[in-house]
């Protein structure tokens, strides 16, 4: 009896494994003989839960809205697109599991994602083996460059932001750095320190502390920061709950008077609203802004239809849209062939919300996108 059960289980496992070996993109054909409609399924991996969930959820709202428009556009062209969402939880292990589910169970070969750099680093090694191509809207860790020829990202590299942060910190004689133990933040810290060492050797780093990922009680660390004699502090935490908790607890220290410098975590309106007095005058280095009336009107339509987009920011809203536009158009053009989609990504030139013309030129990160400096004034980020 036991042997029978084991045999059945082995058989089922083999069948499941073989199902994942299908080299074809998941393409279904439906409709009558005269109006054949091919359905292209594209997977997405992003943080739908956890500390960075606001990014994943707002990206989902953007893509859902745009997908309906794309399907209308392609209705007469015999193509239809489906997005299969998986939660990467801003974590490498969870993203790797999500990736395997998309590829082995759903048979998907084109992926938009990961969101967080941690997610992408989790499944990146599996891309080429499984013949899957991924285009990210958010991943920015400089370590991603050149790691897989099947991965591209529309985010700017953190090396640019790190250089910007290093440049701002270098204006002060003594600085503190507090960093969350997350792939994105650690990479940013490294580039910032390298920039400081290279361009501002006279700047002394008084405190360089890290704290566990997802921490929400940082009062001891902030007490140390307050007690230090630094003039400026770099807040380098993941956007979302961690940054909000950090600024709220920092605002509890009434005699805190250091200049605050931050990254994308301070761009979210939730973080600014949590401690507006503390953050007045804070400097933020982040993606360039997209100052375009059509784009702002479009985002307003999405907000009205799907919900608020308070945290993702204009640039990443733009990358989310461009990712979806590029992947769907290439999927239709190359009939879902991942290798051809990959070659198009590597060599093609694209036009979208983030720039009128951009390309990858065979690299991982999109070329020609820099960073911008903002100052928080009257509860809003103002581009400098």
């Amino acid at each position, binding site marked *: 009896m036991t042997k029978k059960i084991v045999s059945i289980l082995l058989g089922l496992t083999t069948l499941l494994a073989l199902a994942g070996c299908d080299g074809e993109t998941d393409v279904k054909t439906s409709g009558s003989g005269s109006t054949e409609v091919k359905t292209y399924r594209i997977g997405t991996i992003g943080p739908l*839960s956890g500390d960075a*969930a*606001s990014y994943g959820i707002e990206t989902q709202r953007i893509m859902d809205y745009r997908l309906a428009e794309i399907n209308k556009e392609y209705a007469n062209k015999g193509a239809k697109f489906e997005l299969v969402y998986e939660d990467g939880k801003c974590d490498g292990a969870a993203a790797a599991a999500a990736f395997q589910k998309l590829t082995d169970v759903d048979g998907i070969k084109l992926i938009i994602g990961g969101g967080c750099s941690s997610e992408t680093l989790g499944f990146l090694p599996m891309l080429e083996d499984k013949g899957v191509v991924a285009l990210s809207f958010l991943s920015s860790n400089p370590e991603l460059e050149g790691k897989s020829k099947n991965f591209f990202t529309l985010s700017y590299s953190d090396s640019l932001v790190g250089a910007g942060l290093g440049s701002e910190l270098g204006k002060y004689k003594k600085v503190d750095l507090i960093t969350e133990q997350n792939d994105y933040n650690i990479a940013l810290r490294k580039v910032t320190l390298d920039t400081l060492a290279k361009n501002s050797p006279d700047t002394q780093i008084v405190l360089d502390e890290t704290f566990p990922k997802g921490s*929400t009680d940082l009062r*001891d660390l902030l*007490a140390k920061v307050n*007690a230090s004699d630094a003039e400026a502090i770099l807040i380098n935490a993941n956007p*979302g709950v961690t940054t909000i908790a950090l600024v*709220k607890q920092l605002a509890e220290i009434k005699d805190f008077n250091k200049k605050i410098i931050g990254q994308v975590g301070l761009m979210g309106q939730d973080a600014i609203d*949590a401690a507006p007095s503390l953050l007045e005058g804070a400097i933020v280095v982040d993606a360039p802004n997209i100052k375009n009336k059509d784009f702002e009107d479009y985002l307003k339509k999405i907000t009205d239809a799907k919900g608020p987009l308070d945290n993702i920011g204009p640039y990443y809203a733009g990358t989310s849209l461009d990712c979806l536009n590029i992947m769907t158009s290439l999927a239709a053009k190359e009939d879902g062939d991942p290798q051809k989609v990959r070659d198009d990504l590597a060599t093609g030139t694209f036009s979208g919300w983030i720039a009128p013309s951009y390309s990858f030129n065979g690299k991982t990160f999109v070329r020609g996108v820099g960073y911008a400096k903002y100052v928080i004034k009257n509860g809003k980020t103002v581009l400098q």
Partner: protein
Amino acid sequence: MLIVQIFINSLVIGTQVLLLAAGLYLIQAVTKTYHIALGAIATAGAYTYYALYEAGLSGWLCLVAGLAGAGLICWLSFFLLRKYINASQDLLALLSSLTLGVAMEALMGIIFGPEGRFLVKGVLPVYEWAGLHITQVGLWTIILGVVTAAASYVFFISITLGQNHPCGIPASSLRSYHGHR
């Protein structure tokens, strides 16, 4: 002053852990079971408070409702664990408690969403003295911890009912140190 400030911060966190650990200990002392779903039950009580507070009810009413909600779930969980406790199957009771905790956390995630919640949108009220500071919530936590510790001491050491209570029996060495039988 930094070390004093860190001490104050640590006292607040330590008291929070103490209050939860006390519940865990009380259950373990009576049933010999580690009811590790207690954390999830406490979270459910907190979310009950949060949901009612966001709906506009007064803080005190929300507090009573939150405590009642957590108490109700705890009482219901007793029926899940009762047969294992009665049969002295401690491991099965532990596994059941763990399963209940995971299921409750998943349910709360589905109902309330994945993001953390802040009951106070802005900065917590803060008391300052001589360069030190403590939040109002932190002060109440410490007061609650001191009152709980004092009440427990009086109950288990000085009162006969507490001395004979299963939770108080392991405190016999503490009692003899203080000259009680």
